[in-house]
């Protein structure tokens, strides 16, 4: 990881030198982010631009009809680009962070649906009938268009309602991918069968390239990359019960050197017989980003679902697993600050363990405050380790318990504005703030921090349950 290396060159760290290295790396990432964003916009506008320049239509076509066509081209490109946002292209995801791309993917998916709905409404409002949405009626163009429309509606609805419908993640993910492929093919069929703008080669080429790019990315994501992953196995070194329904897995690479990461990043873990047949789960890396002699990594996993409750405890030393990483922008290596405030809720402490261990290993002397919220002591993980770290680095620990023992003298209840006032260090805008925990807690804390005068750019969080 480039950022990690930039910071690691100096140990123990001089504060100004560390800030300079992080700032420089952040500028590089910003530039790359701008380039990737520009490419995305250019891709989204490519079919429309080529169609406008080629403009093969000679018959009279009204403004509304052309507007409908334009909406169709935009929806077509947006849907084709959707997969690129979540296909784990490391170069593209590094500047933004995987969770940001997932959220962007979600919003642009909804935007694509809006453009798809606007496409027939603007193009043929006077002769639009319900029968036009029947995939069993009409010519090839109408049928393919109707199929694409209904499948896209189903895909978006299933994604938005997954939580309420209690749709299992694995089943939803499989359906999501299958529907996406069918939609891409139906869209292509519709555009080619309409044969108006696509009657000329440049427009035909750009529309085919859009969907071909989508399918190639899918092939890479679900095929080539899994084959590469299968050739780089890891094995369980140890599997430890941390209490609070949490286990820490130590995994070491088998026959390769593993990978470097920045503290706070995550990786996808696949267990089972092969990564080709197993679902992958995103997990924060909880060990130090400074490499151990055997290049091993640690993941601390709380029992939430079937996989974490049943599969994880059963992983014995020597068991093969597959790790795809690192990913994510939730790392203090990207945040130039004179100190850090880490706010954890429950198992949200895992990326902070990685950050604190890394600071210790790098000799980083910048001050850190960790506010750790849990129900009570029984739900706290890494207590002994964190207390030991508080003696090794400039770390202040603040435990916040929702239901503490009656004789508890510390903070109790939820983290609130008054509590933050007591602990936030001065000057507030010289520090970076990281929040990790349940979604509702992160929403609340982010708002409290913003109200406390923390610049929004200094508040960092990461969300994975965006669907």
């Amino acid at each position: 990881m480039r950022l990690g290396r930039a910071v690691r060159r100096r140990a123990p760290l001089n504060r100004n030198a560390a800030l300079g290295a992080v700032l420089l790396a952040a500028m590089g990432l910003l530039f790359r982010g701008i380039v990737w964003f520009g490419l995305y916009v250019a891709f989204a506008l490519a079919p429309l631009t080529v169609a406008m320049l080629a403009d093969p239509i000679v018959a009279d076509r009204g403004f509304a009809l052309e507007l409908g066509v334009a909406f169709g081209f935009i929806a077509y490109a947006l849907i084709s680009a959707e997969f690129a946002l979540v296909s784990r292209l490391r170069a593209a995801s590094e500047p933004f962070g995987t969770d940001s791309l997932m959220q962007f993917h979600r919003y642009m998916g909804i935007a694509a649906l809006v453009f798809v709905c606007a496409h027939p409404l603007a193009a043929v409002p006077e002769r639009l009938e319900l029968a036009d949405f029947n995939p069993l009626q009409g010519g090839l163009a109408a049928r393919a268009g109707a199929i694409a429309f209904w499948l896209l509606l189903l895909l978006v609805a299933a994604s938005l309602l997954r939580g309420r419908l209690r749709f299992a993640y694995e089943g939803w993910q499989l359906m999501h991918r299958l529907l996406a492929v069918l939609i891409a093919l139906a869209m292509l069929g519709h555009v080619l069968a309409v044969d108006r703008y696509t009657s000329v080669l440049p427009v035909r080429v750009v529309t085919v390239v859009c969907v071909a790019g989508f399918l190639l990315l899918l092939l890479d994501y679900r095929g080539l990359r899994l084959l590469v992953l299968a050739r780089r196995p890891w094995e369980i070194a140890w599997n430890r019960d941390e209490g609070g329904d949490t286990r820490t897995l130590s995994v070491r690479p088998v026959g390769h050197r593993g990978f470097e990461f920045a503290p706070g990043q995550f990786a996808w873990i696949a267990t089972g017989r092969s990564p080709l047949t197993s679902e992958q789960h995103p997990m924060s890396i909880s060990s130090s980003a400074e490499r151990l002699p055997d290049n091993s990594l640690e993941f601390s996993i709380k029992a939430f679902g079937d996989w974490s409750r049943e599969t994880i405890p059963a992983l014995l030393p020597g068991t093969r697993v597959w790790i795809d990483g690192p990913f994510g922008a939730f790392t203090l290596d990207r945040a130039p600050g004179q100190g850090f405030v880490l706010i954890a809720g429950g198992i949200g402490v895992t990326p902070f363990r990685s950050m604190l261990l890394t600071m210790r290993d790098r000799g980083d002397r910048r001050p850190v405050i960790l506010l750790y919220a849990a129900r009570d002591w029984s739900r706290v993980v890494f207590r002994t380790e964190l207390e030991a770290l508080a003696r090794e680095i400039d770390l202040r620990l603040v435990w916040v318990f929702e239901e503490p023992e009656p004789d508890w003298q510390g903070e109790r209840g939820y983290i609130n504005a008054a509590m933050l006032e007591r602990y936030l260090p001065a000057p507030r805008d010289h520090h970076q703030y990281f929040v990790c925990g349940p979604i509702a807690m992160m929403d609340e804390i982010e708002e409290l921090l913003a109200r406390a005068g923390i610049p929004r750019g200094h508040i960092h969080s990461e969300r994975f349950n965006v669907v």
Partner: protein
Amino acid sequence: VQRLIILRLAFGLIALFTSAALLFSWATSPPAPVAARTAGDSGAREAALFEQRCGRCHAREELLEWLGRRSDADAGGALLEFLGEHGEASNRENRTIVVYLETLATPP
């Protein structure tokens, strides 16, 4: 915080794409026939465009006569194709010229 930024970005992009769609529609849809415009708009702009793009080599009457000789319904399309192959004007300008000539060729 992050979600808000991404949401704003998404709305910004939707606005950008909608503007691009409007630009596309403006560029690819034919202008309204001269006769259908308001009384104050005499078609002087179209006449000037014709003079600029075609007038140096072709008299207006020459093209009107050519249009009049065509009996098929797509005379305008054929003329548009001709202009696309013979001039340097944009598609939109060519369309404007065709509509201008067709308007003049159509008896009131």
